[in-house]
């Protein structure tokens, strides 16, 4: 029964956040004024999926260029000028992994998200080895794809600085302490790890799967809302009673740490 209760509590949070259309506009990496909308190269042979993805991404503010075959993707890809690429693993004529390897060999450093119908561990590993930066298994939710593209375009704040600051929160990476407006917050190691991940990616939508994969290094879809419970516990520690939540729930997608304006 308490599982249900937990769902209910997280749902109310989500509903609050859902009122503001957070995370709808991709902020993108700074494209130096060339274009305000981030450019995506989509290499996918399945026309239906390609159209769906392209439409969804366009509606989210991306500019999508589609290539239906490996060689086409390669010739467009080497010209550069893209912020991120989506490459299907299985492509006619030129395999997706070979395509990525060739691009990497030609000094194209654009981040790549590999799409695959296979989710076996070795496929994932070989996908990442070939130079892919992230791996997504079909079928996937559009929110998941969008969030991961976002994450790829923005480099996480991996600075050498030992202090991370988001709004009233300050994290000392050496002392391993967290303060809110100067008041120290007592966190368990796992809560610290989660908050660090969030603070390195402020104002960015993070899906449950991304958190599970990156914070806990797990690659399975749990039966229970594991991530929600962890976020819930963290929220209770870092939020001020009655104040707006620092970690916002993004309906149907995940969470975002946002500094109040």
């Amino acid at each position: 029964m308490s599982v249900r209760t937990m769902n209910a509590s997280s749902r109310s949070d989500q509903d609050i956040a859902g009122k503001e259309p957070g995370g709808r506009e991709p902020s993108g990496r700074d494209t130096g004024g060339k274009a305000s909308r981030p450019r995506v190269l989509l290499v996918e042979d399945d026309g239906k999926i390609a159209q769906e993805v392209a439409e969804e991404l366009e509606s989210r503010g991306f500019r999508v260029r589609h290539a239906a075959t490996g060689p086409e993707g390669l010739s467009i890809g080497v010209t550069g000028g893209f912020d991120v690429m989506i490459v299907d693993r299985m492509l006619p004529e030129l395999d997706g992994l070979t395509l990525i390897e060739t691009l990497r060999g030609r000094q194209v450093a654009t981040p790549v998200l590999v799409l695959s119908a296979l989710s076996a561990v070795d496929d994932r590993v070989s996908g990442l080895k070939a130079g892919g930066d992230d791996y997504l298994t079909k079928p996937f939710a559009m929110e998941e794809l969008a969030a991961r593209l976002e994450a790829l375009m923005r480099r996480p704040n991996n600075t050498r600085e030992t202090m991370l600051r988001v709004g009233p929160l300050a994290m000392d990476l050496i002392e391993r302490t967290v303060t809110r407006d100067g008041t120290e917050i007592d966190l368990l190691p796992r809560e610290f790890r989660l908050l660090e991940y969030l603070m390195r990616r402020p104002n960015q939508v993070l899906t449950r799967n991304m958190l599970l994969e990156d914070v806990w290094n797990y690659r399975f879809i749990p039966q229970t809302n594991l991530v929600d419970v962890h976020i819930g516990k963290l929220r209770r520690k870092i939020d001020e009673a009655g104040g707006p939540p620092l970690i916002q729930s993004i309906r149907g997608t995940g969470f975002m740490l946002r500094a109040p304006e």
Partner: protein
Amino acid sequence: MLLSELFRTATFRLTLAVVAAMIGTAALQFSLGYSQTKTFEFRRSDALLHREADLLSHENAQDLEHKIRERATDDLRVVINEAGLFDMAHRYVAGDLRVWPDGLIADGRVRELTVWPTEDAPYVLRILAIPVEGGRILVLARGLHMLDEWRLMMRHSLLVSIVPTVLFALMTGIVLSHRALARVTVMHEAIDRIMEGDLHERLPSGRGRDEMQRLAGSVNRMLDRLEHLMDEIRDVGNDIAHDLRTPLARVRARLDRALGDRALGDALSADDLRSVVGRAIDDLDQCFSIITALLRIGEIENARRRVGFAVVDLNEIAADIVDLYEPIAEAKQIRLDLLPSTGPVPVYGDRDLLIEVLANLIDNAIKFTDPGGEVTLGMVRQGDGARLEVADTGIGIIPEERQAVLNRFYRSDKSRHVPGSGLGLSLVSAILRLHNASLTISETRKQDARPGALFGVVFPPSPPTVSASA
């Protein structure tokens, strides 16, 4: 039934082999008997010749010559078939043997020689020549016609007996093949009916216990199992349909209601609409989780390769999993305990899949345990393998249901109200099968009120070549 078909049956071929063996045996018997008889007859002839020659050699020259002449009319003729008296130059003196046979030497030893009489066909004789008084040579001979007669007789009787025997055997073979073929035809027809889709059809196995009936019995048992599996697949299909239908029906009803209210002019507020859509998405997410879990099980069951396999420390995985699930247990006021082992517990497996196993077992244990209960995770090295236990103080699983809970979608009646895809344990058992690990379910019996469930996993020893190939 075609005759050629009959001749191709195993039974008929067996009959042919038996017939050949019979003929062979008879021929062998005949030749053995003949050679035995021949030896015996030779020995007897030689003894006779020696005895007679011995007697005759004591006669004086005249008497001997007389006796040889008379011998043609004598009774002795039956025993000594031919006799002759020759001088030292092998010239004929007396007797019915008129020509000195080629190759005969007067040394007192019996020889076997062929004589070629001018007017008759050549014949074989056992022949003995000894020097006697008066510078003469006595030649005594005995023919082998007795042996030849015996051989003719035996050959004749052999033919007389073997022909009807062989014919009888062949007839029996045809009858038996016909029967076997008839039984096989009945089975063929039954199999054809099964192949046409009548899975309830069985082969006629009869009451007897001969090899055909035993084979039919085996095939029938196989068909029982296949039918059972087919039923299971059908059940799984029904279960999937049912489990997907419930949330989908809810989605439809919610959306329908929202739309209906609007048609009445009673427009929903943006908030209400948002909450309706939100709940619909929750229900759709449940459908997705079922589909994802099913695909995952299929993927794991099809995985023949063990590419991701390496030696992993169960202890480490368990610590991580407990760390991940502690807040969930805490929220339900359940104590989640890890009984750490004294050292690392290495098993050979896929880290991600083993995490999935542990996560599902812990998830399951927490789900079916009431607030105030406890879930314990423990592991030990067992020989070269390892044993892992997840124990809870929840409602437990009755023995009759313990196998069934590992099946897809099985949900005990007691657990109908608990949310979930119902596929967690199926996933666990699929992954453990890939690891050759066994899963047993028993009860914890820590608290008297609730039996609790104890899931025990036994991992086999890791292969010794692991570190080399890894």
